[in-house]
């Protein structure tokens, strides 16, 4: 059992310079209240790991706008011209990772694997500097685990153990990131008593969640 904390308190748990996984896909399933609190506290030098950088004024885009981000490890920045501008101006580093590879690298970190072999990226710039390993006559890239200091998640329901459920397409990277960070902060839409979520419907167990953010007022 743990007490839920405010988004502001959650934001103080994210040190400047930290690597931070943020759930969401085009800001759907992102922890919006903690993102706002991070902007309000003026976080600096973050490395953000997520699917994309949202749009200006939306989701991770707010952190980009506010200059909180030194580096983004994402699959897509096409919807955020600010990210592109800052990248070209050298104000921000952007590492582009194929979306499925990003998912597997985060999962590998959470699952204690040293890496996975994927056909994705063979014959492209993604393969540069990576080991190519042949299995059964087919070439694969060795992709290594991706871990973070902090994971910021959106959840649909939580209980006070920190058990989480996710909702429809707001699920995306959230359950993967819950496994791959030292500090795991979940921002649920609703908090219910322990025992209310059936065991088969829990998607992330409370033992992985270090902090629970209070429900929206």
């Amino acid at each position, binding site marked *: 059992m743990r007490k839920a904390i405010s988004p502001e308190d959650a934001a103080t748990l994210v040190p400047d310079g930290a690597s931070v996984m943020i759930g969401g*896909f*085009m*800001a*759907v*399933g992102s922890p919006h209240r903690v993102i706002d609190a991070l902007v309000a506290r003026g976080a600096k030098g973050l490395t953000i790991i997520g*699917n*994309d950088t949202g749009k200006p004024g939306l989701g991770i885009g707010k952190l980009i706008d506010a200059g909180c981000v030194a580096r983004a490890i*994402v*699959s*897509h*920045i*096409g*919807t955020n011209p600010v990210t*592109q501008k800052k*990248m070209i101006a050298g104000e921000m580093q*952007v590492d*582009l990772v*194929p*979306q*499925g*590879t*990003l*998912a*597997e690298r985060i*999962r590998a970190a959470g699952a204690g694997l040293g890496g996975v072999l*994927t*056909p*994705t*990226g*063979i*014959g*492209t*710039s*993604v393969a540069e500097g990576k080991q190519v390993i042949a299995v059964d006559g087919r070439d694969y890239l060795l992709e290594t685990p991706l871990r973070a200091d902090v994971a910021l998640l959106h959840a*649909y329901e939580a209980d006070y153990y920190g058990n989480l459920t*996710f*909702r*429809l*397409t*707001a*699920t*995306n*990277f*959230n*359950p*993967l990131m819950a496994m791959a960070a030292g500090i795991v902060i979940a921002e649920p839409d609703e908090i219910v008593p322990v025992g209310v979520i059936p065991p088969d419907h829990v*998607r992330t167990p409370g033992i992985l969640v270090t902090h629970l953010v209070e429900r929206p007022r």
Partner: protein
Amino acid sequence: MDGKEIIARRVAGELRHRMLVNLGIGLPTLVSRYVPEGMVVAFQSENGIIGFGAQPPDGMEDPNLTDAGGGYISALPGAYSFDSAMSFALIRGGHLDMTVLGGLQVDASGRLANWMVPGRMVAGMGGAMDLVAGAKRVVIAMQHAARGEAKIVPLLTLPPTAARPVSLVVTDLAVIEPTPEGLVLRERAPGVGVDEILAATTAPLILPDAIPEMRL
């Protein structure tokens, strides 16, 4: 019928009953409008759902239910939602029967470029590299040329999306199939002649005896 509709209708002709199909953002999305009557096709959105439907009426949207572009969608009976690891396990694992993607260039060997223009535009590959590496069939839906420049070229000048050649290229002018021998011109858009296609294409095209018009 404009170019986009021609492309979307012709790509829809590649759909088969009970296929699992991923449609890229933009032009490829239009394909879902032209599923043949009586055919059941499961559409996957890589952000995490199979079996989605049209945008709900105003005020009935769910902020937790969107397509890969962030637009509101609905869920059809029998829908399935999942996380990003499962989404790409389906894509990479050969469970996806077909993906329809936009393209910036396709070259004579059938390779696709669709994620960046050095010095001008960096969108990022999103799921495209996984889709081209993993889907059973990769169909490219794109304008034949852009701003007067050929997009079907001898050799990619843009960074490739994958080493693997695509299965089929459908444009507003033609249907072209990459083969080990080269690009084969399979069909013409209604009213479009072979000469017009050749003029808009810098890659060499193999011309079979019969090059019928598309059936739309």
